[in-house]
């Protein structure tokens, strides 16, 4: 009898699926299949193996596992394991020897393998969302299925720039674009491009991806639009871009190849026995159950029933009615109130990116069911879409969200101390003191513990959000998952699954993590007493009883949750409409029948930003333009911004000396980080040395993209990452060399205990020099120097420039001229600051101190925030102009960075000026600001002032920023009004 052939079996257990492949000795595929495991890893693996037993037979097999979830399973089952990138590598070597590089996108990982010219294998770091899970989230956001999204992308006409670093950021970008009325087709394609950009920039890190490129993994197998995006971005021909058949089971094939090398040979039964024997003995941390039993749950429900709102039948109601609309980021909410504050009608639905259509349909519906004797006499709208809805449907009033929510909460709990609103995308918290909003806390760009987070998890595990939350209600041991961003949460859930947590326990754990995120990350609560006695919880997410219960358990205090928790914005808007009254201009029943609008796209030519404009035209000839950072895009002339110190600084910074006629060298100065302040110094220095200077322009998204591929650390701050673009720009300008000083110490302004730069500002030059292959020691000069020690600084400059023929004396003279130019610049800024403040006071305008770092004047870094403020009719001053008005402040934290000392002093000064408010700009990833934010908040709040912080990154979501700034202004006005009373 012939000896039985030994087969090899590769099993790839990923974050969402189990894939298995059987190869015979000749490498032919005898079996290949994949199943979604819905977190039941062990069970699904066994199902797969049973299939193989039936279809291929008992074996014996060489076996190996691979994949992120395969790691734990194989370890416990004492079966071989091969890391998935390595398994891909083995499979490629065997099946596609001609490939030069391979890109694999998985559920939560992205990998790249370079095969020729030095083998290299790379995986995404812990914070990078541009993967399959990210695409799933985006599809959820657009409310379409993946195949639909793919089909749409193929019909797209244009692509928008979307932040590609992190899923959470991209979401904000997509949201903003959606709200502007952009077409879903275009968004779908933009998302695929974002994924391609993320993979290429984040993983290749400067190494070029060329030749024959193999594309692997589920998303690249199923999504044609994604394939297209990768192919275009990498400029590959049809022959070079290889999309192999069976890419979805490719890793499993690699594992099977690896298995061949294993000595052990097992029958399928033996393999299954080992897997079966795996018990979940993981070290899971568990919390207390949400409810002990049904009776507990019933009591809880009964208690919250007290806050039901009265309703009245719209069909029989006669009289005045008040309409409130909350046009949120993902949903449309409508409440119609009677004269006695009874709810006549309410509605809640995802707007699917088409807010106008949804509201028009709802209004038609209201008119069709209402008693003809009901009349809408006043209307108000709040939320992201406020302006759009006001412009299109002539809603009477607009109010900022925070005020709407406050109004609504006060209706249920007139003496409310604290409002926590968790919606689909936002978390908003307000502390109320003396009947006015005292402080506002909103979630930052990178903490997405909101409703859509639960929804995305539910869907990933195969549930709708409601039933998913319900199954957690009676879980005995809810898993502790921590409180971090979605990407981290994904891997926490993965770990819990590996450790054998049940779906019920994960569900309860996720509900609790939403609450923890809000409490510890957004509110930054130290003790629960801070929250006060009367707490109102609202927002759609709190309709979820698991979340509400978790919150009460966590703070050990009962709270109020109105039955219309999800509609509070609209309810507040309706109350506001009623309060304001007047004659309504709201679109009438007749006008509705003829209502239509058209959407057009254009590129604004007003300035170099070239904003992507979306232009909506309405039947009454009205036009609504969005996507613009300033008013120029709306055809209006930008107001002369004499009260904007940011604009002044941008202009003044670039008032430089003439270039010499016969320059000795052409020197590139990257307008980046420290040079946003020191440009006058170094520009003058080189010009006095007889050199011509080329200064890179203010940043743009395009400039960023040109440098993106050389960024080694994805989590560095955006201002730092932009320097790669500036270097790229200057390299194309035929400079003899580039210059960026390395300064551990900044100028000692005698405001703190030391005067450091942050490590990034200090040393980013060293990083650029080593990571852009076109740069070297000769053409990138970054001398280490300390401006406070001129003698040493001159020595250091001499050392690095002497071989170009400069004498020490020349350098000394030029340096001194530079320092003088630098002082003149700083002095001018301070004086102009005084003038702006004086003028603003004359005109009675509120002064907003936009406090950041020198580089925050860059329009791409601040996303046009100062321009936005100009349009809100306030004066804008920067921190460096007012930091010196008072004696240095004694801080509670170690005050040892020059730029940050200015922040503390500026905050201290603002707190003493009734007509000034502070807006703290923080770049995402700024480690130092983790310390300054709390301290600046303390300085302001100790004096009873509001603290508003805006975290900025690549994302360009001015909508959210606008709401924040308007909330600040509205809260200030409300406070002043009350003070007067």
């Amino acid at each position, binding site marked *: 009898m012939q000896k039985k052939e030994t087969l090899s079996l590769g099993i790839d257990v990923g974050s969402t699926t189990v894939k298995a492949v059987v190869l015979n000795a000749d490498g032919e595929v005898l079996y290949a299949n994949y199943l979604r495991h819905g977190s039941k890893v062990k069970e699904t693996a066994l199902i797969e193996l049973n299939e193989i037993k039936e279809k291929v037979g008992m074996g014996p097999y060489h076996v190996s596992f691979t994949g992120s979830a395969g790691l734990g399973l194989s370890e416990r089952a004492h079966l071989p394991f091969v890391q998935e990138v*390595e398994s891909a590598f083995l499979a490629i070597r065997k099946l596609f020897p001609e490939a030069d590089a391979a890109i694999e996108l998985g559920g939560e990982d992205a990998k790249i393998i370079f095969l020729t010219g030095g083998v290299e294998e790379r995986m995404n770091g812990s914070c990078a969302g541009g993967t399959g899970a990210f695409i799933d989230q985006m599809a959820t956001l657009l409310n379409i299925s993946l195949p639909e999204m793919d089909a749409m992308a193929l019909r797209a006409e244009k692509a928008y720039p979307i932040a590609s670093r992190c899923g959470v950021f991209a979401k904000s970008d997509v949201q903003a674009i959606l709200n502007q009325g952009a077409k879903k087709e275009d968004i779908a394609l933009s998302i695929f491009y974002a994924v391609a950009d993320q993979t290429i920039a984040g993983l290749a890190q400067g190494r070029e991806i060329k030749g024959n490129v193999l594309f692997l993994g589920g998303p690249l197998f199923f999504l044609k639009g994604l394939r297209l995006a990768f192919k275009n971005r990498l400029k590959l021909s049809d022959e070079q871009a290889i999309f192999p058949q069976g890419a979805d089971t490719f890793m499993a094939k690699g594992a099977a190849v690896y298995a061949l090398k294993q000595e052990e040979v097992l029958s399928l039964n033996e393999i299954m026995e080992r897997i079966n024997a795996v018990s979940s003995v993981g070290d899971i941390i568990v919390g207390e159950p949400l409810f002990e039993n049904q009776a507990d749950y019933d009591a809880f429900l009964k208690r919250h029933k007290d806050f039901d709102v009265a309703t009245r039948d719209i069909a029989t109601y006669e009289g005045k009615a008040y309409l409130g609309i909350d046009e949120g980021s993902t949903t449309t909410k409508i409440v119609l109130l009677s004269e006695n504050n009874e709810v006549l009608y309410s509605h809640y639905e995802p707007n699917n990116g088409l807010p106008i259509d949804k509201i028009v349909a709802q209004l038609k519906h209201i008119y069709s069911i209402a008693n003809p004797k009901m009349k809408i006499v006043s209307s108000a709208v709040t939320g992201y879409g406020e302006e759009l809805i006001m412009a299109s449907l002539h809603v009477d009033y607009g109010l900022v969200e925070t005020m709407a929510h406050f109004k609504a909460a006060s209706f249920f709990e007139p003496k409310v101390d604290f409002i926590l609103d968790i919606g689909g995308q936002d978390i908003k918290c307000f502390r109320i003191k003396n009947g006015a909003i005292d402080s506002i806390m909103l979630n930052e760009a990178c903490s997405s513990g909101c409703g859509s987070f639960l929804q995305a998890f539910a869907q990933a595990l195969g549930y709708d959000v409601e039933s998913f939350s319900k199954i957690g209600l009676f879980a005995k041991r809810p898993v502790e998952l921590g409180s971090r961003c979605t990407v981290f949460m994904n*891997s926490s859930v993965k770990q819990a699954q590996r450790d054998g947590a049940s779906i019920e326990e994960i569900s309860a754990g996720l509900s609790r993590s939403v609450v923890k995120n809000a409490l510890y990350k957004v509110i930054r609560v130290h003790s629960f007493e801070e929250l006060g006695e009367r707490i109102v919880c609202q927002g759609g997410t709190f309709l979820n009883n698991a979340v509400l219960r978790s919150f009460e358990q966590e703070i050990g205090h009962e709270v109020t949750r109105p039955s219309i928790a999800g509609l509070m914005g609209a309810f507040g808007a309706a109350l506001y409409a009623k309060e304001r009254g007047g004659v309504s201009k709201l679109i009438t029943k007749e006008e509705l029948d003829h209502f239509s609008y058209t959407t057009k796209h254009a590129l604004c030519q007003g300035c170099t930003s070239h904003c992507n404009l979306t232009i909506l035209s309405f039947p009454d000839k009205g036009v609504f333009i969005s996507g613009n950072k300033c008013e120029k895009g709306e055809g209006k002339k930008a107001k002369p911004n004499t009260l904007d110190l940011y604009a002044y600084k941008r202009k003044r910074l670039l008032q430089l000396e003439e270039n010499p006629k016969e320059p000795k060298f052409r020197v590139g100065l990257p307008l980046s980080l420290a040079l946003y302040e020191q440009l006058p110094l170094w520009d003058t220095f080189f010009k006095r040395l007889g050199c011509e200077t080329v200064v890179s322009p203010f940043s743009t998204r395009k400039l960023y993209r040109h440098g993106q591929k050389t960024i080694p*650390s994805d989590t560095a701050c955006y201002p730092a990452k932009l320097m790669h673009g500036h270097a790229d720009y200057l390299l194309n300008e035929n400079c003899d060399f580039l210059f960026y000083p390395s300064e*551990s110490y900044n100028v000692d302004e005698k405001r703190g205990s030391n005067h450091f730069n942050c490590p990034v500002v200090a040393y980013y030059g060293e990083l650029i020099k*080593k990571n852009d292959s076109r740069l070297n020691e000769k053409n990138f000069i970054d001398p280490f120097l300390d401006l406070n020690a001129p003698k*040493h600084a001159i020595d250091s400059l001499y050392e690095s420039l002497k071989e170009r023929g400069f004498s020490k004396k020349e350098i000394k003279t030029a340096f001194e001229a530079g320092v003088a130019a630098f002082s003149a610049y700083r002095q001018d800024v301070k004086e102009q600051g005084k003038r702006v403040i004086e003028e603003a006071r004359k005109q009675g305008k509120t002064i907003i101190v936009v406090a950041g770092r020198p580089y925050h004047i860059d329009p791409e870094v601040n996303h046009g925030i100062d321009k936005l403020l100009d349009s809100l009719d306030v004066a804008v001053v920067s921190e460096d102009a007012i930091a010196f008005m008072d004696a240095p402040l004694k801080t509670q934290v170690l005050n040892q960075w020059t730029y940050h000392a200015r922040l503390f002093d500026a905050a201290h000064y603002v707190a003493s000026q009734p007509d000034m408010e502070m807006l703290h700009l923080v770049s995402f990833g700024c480690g*130092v600001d*983790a310390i300054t934010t709390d301290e600046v908040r303390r300085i302001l709040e100790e004096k009873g002032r509001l603290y508003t912080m805006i975290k900025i990154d690549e994302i360009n979501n001015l909508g959210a920023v606008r709401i924040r700034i308007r909330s600040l202004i509205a809260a200030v006005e409300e406070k002043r009004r009350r003070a007067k009373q």
Partner: protein
Amino acid sequence: MSERSKFFKKLRKEKYTILCPDMLPTHFDILIAVLNKEGYNIKIVSPKGREAKDEGLRAIHNDACYPALIVAGQFIAELKSGQYDLDHTAVIMSQTGGGCRASNYISLFRKAFHELFPTVPVLSINFSGLEKDASLPFNVPLALKAVTAVQYGDMIFNLELQTRPYETYPGQVEEIKKDLAAKLKAQIGKPSFMKLKKNLLMIRDAFSAISLPQKRKPRVAIVGEIYVKYSPYANNNLTEFLEKQNCEVVYPSLSEFVLYCIYNMMEDYRRYGMKWLTAKVAGMLYKHFLKQTRVMNSLIKEGGYFPYEDFEYVVKQGERIINTGVKMGEGWLIPAEMLAYSQNGVHNIVCAQPFGCLPNHIVGKGMVRPLKEIDPSINIVPLDFDASSTQVNQENRLKLMLANLK
């Protein structure tokens, strides 16, 4: 008597329990015995489970770095345990000073403690003149004893890492260590404690009970941010994991980090003319310390083990890749160590960092590419640590590095 002297005298007299974070258990054990001999009652916290991490997340701004969060967390968890008289308990931690935000930990802790444990003082150990009123006073004899204790710690640490993978029975190394710690501690306060060579030899002899095989296991170096790279609690037992994967772990010595700090003081004078006197003292200390490490290294080598890299060799490697003016956090030392390792045959390197660590953008991830250019045989995996980062994610990346073992 200065306020500070009075304060620390009170701590000794009233037998305050002073909690100290875990980091390098072997070193700290001896070091703390030295300090306790001065009359203190310092106790190392050894956190387990998630509790300390959760407490840290709650008390410290979540964007602050992981070491701050986790150290604060372990203090809080410990203080909450109820086993301390809070009127007679303090906490202590080291501060290196410098432009990295780590210098601010103490302020962060004070803020957190202000509400939670108002009676518990936060003390500092530093040599940069920070926290004048709350930093542990050192005189020259004590400093010399402490420095010697670091040498003993380094010697044990080096040999335990090289022998544990080849123990004749599990737990053998632990036994040796326990025995050695007892012997060394018994000498504290006696002149024999300062007999460096004799004691180093005693340590070496103790480990010679384990014989090394001809063919050693593949060696993997761990470099990175000081707390995360050393503390098993912070790095999810990285050493244990790698040893289970059949590797031998290689670590830089604690002395090297101390030398790095001293070296930077000398550089500040050379480059910027700062603090002449400090630089002078630093120069003397540097020479003394460097000599000690060389004594240790030659003894290790004579015993047939791999010694630590010589500090001046490491500096030279550093200069090949980055300007040694990069001095915040672990600064130039990290790429210098990586290159030194790879040049000397340890190509596999884990660069352990707190998530979002600022200097690491430059000296960790930022130097991977130039390192590969200089030494293509280098096999680095940068690994981020965070209170929420999971083992699955980290192990998977480590496995990738292990698949390419060189």
